[in-house]
């Protein structure tokens, strides 16, 4: 049919600014969520090392709960339900300063951290009990063993599976448009509705995510090569 693709449309104002603003928000939300997700994920994952059974169970439950509820449902929960726990004037204030942004970051952080916790837990298995016994046999205390043997190895072992989650954060940030965050996906649809240039708009959106994925893959590839543990990584540690 008579659809003529015109790429120059994307360079016209206000579309150019919309794309850039969207890209900025996508990167901002994803990186913040990634930092929080990684930190919380590692901490909660380490709880499974705890000799106290209830504490260890917390990390198992954490993974199961947040991995088995769809990200969109969690986002709705954070956006619509969580503010209700606050008194009215605070709640109003929360929506005024942009709770759509906050709920997106919060949800994505928690979701990512649950995934990371899962990887940390299987990473702890990969470190193995032989190494732990050897460490204890040299006279290290339990705490020293964790600090100097288990954690440094763990952080290196989980890198390949963490890469997948880093990629997932960027893709997951697209859901934020459901509560009205104007990130890349939102902006491309806005351009589509405004100009009916759907092909151009969707292409630029897809390309943005593709480039981000490439950037992450290259970055994590470098990290992976730097920290690889010979002999430990080949042991069927496949991301599933």
């Amino acid at each position, binding site marked *: 049919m008579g659809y003529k693709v015109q790429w120059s449309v994307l360079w016209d104002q206000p579309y150019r600014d919309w794309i850039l603003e969207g890209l900025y928000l996508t990167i901002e939300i994803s990186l913040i969520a990634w930092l929080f997700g990684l930190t919380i994920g590692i901490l909660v994952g380490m709880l499974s090392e705890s000799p106290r059974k209830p504490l260890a169970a917390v990390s198992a439950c954490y993974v199961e709960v947040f991995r088995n509820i769809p990200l969109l449902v969690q986002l709705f929960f954070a956006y*619509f339900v969580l503010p209700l726990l606050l008194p009215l004037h605070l709640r109003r204030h929360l929506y005024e300063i942009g709770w759509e942004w906050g709920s997106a970051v919060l949800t994505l952080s928690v979701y990512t951290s649950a995934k990371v916790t899962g990887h940390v837990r299987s990473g702890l298995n990969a470190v193995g009990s032989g190494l732990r016994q050897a460490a204890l046999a040299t006279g290290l205390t339990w705490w020293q063993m964790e600090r100097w043997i288990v954690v440094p190895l763990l952080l290196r072992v989980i890198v390949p599976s963490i890469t997948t989650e880093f990629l997932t954060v960027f893709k997951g940030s697209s859901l934020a448009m459901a509560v009205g965050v104007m990130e890349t*996906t939102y902006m491309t649809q806005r351009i589509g509705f405004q100009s009916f240039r759907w092909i151009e708009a969707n292409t630029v959106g897809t390309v943005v995510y593709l480039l981000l994925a490439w950037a992450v893959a290259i970055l994590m590839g470098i990290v992976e090569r730097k920290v690889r543990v010979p002999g430990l990584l080949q042991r069927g540690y496949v991301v599933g």
Partner: protein
Amino acid sequence: MTPLQFLDNLLSLILALLRYNVLLTALAILLAFPIASLLALGRLSRYRVISYPIMAYINLLRSSPLLMVMFWTYYTFPMLVGGANLNVFYAALFALTAFEAAYFAEFIRAGIQSIHKDQRLAALATGLKPWQVSLHVIWPQAVHRMIPSLLTQSIIAFQDSTLASIIGLREVAQTTTIINSVQVKPIWMYSILAGLYLVLCLTLSRGVHRLERRTAKLLAV
């Protein structure tokens, strides 16, 4: 919320879940599996004319968000064929199938590659033809190994089917929002929605986990 109202709402959500999410996911998985098998075979092909475009497809779909794929199938593709309107359900189905096929293809490829090369050589030495080796020797073993990861991915697909609410399918997440806009009971409604998914996916993933352990034991022999 009275107990009767609670049951009524729960029933509405379950119906929406069965009618759209479960159906959507089931159809998408059934369609995606054969497509993904072909993609995986093509990806492993010796001929670059075949393997490169398939690799590009798989990487493109795996790095785009599902939401973006849905916008392609719902708004963009119908325009290309002359502005005809595509039913939301079919648009979502199309997107989810294309998306999951890319993920499935990678799991299937991993399954095929996990079978040792010597088996192929041994089977060829017994006089089987190459396609017979693939179909009767490699494929059955590979399927055994890839089933847990395919099932796990299917559970993720079931969760992802809620995204169809954003392009306007009246599935369970949207039904929740609609009921909530009438009754204004957000805490209840979203808790029911989350609880429903939690129970279902937890049960399913437990099942997959048990299957996985059984397969691992079987293959360890």
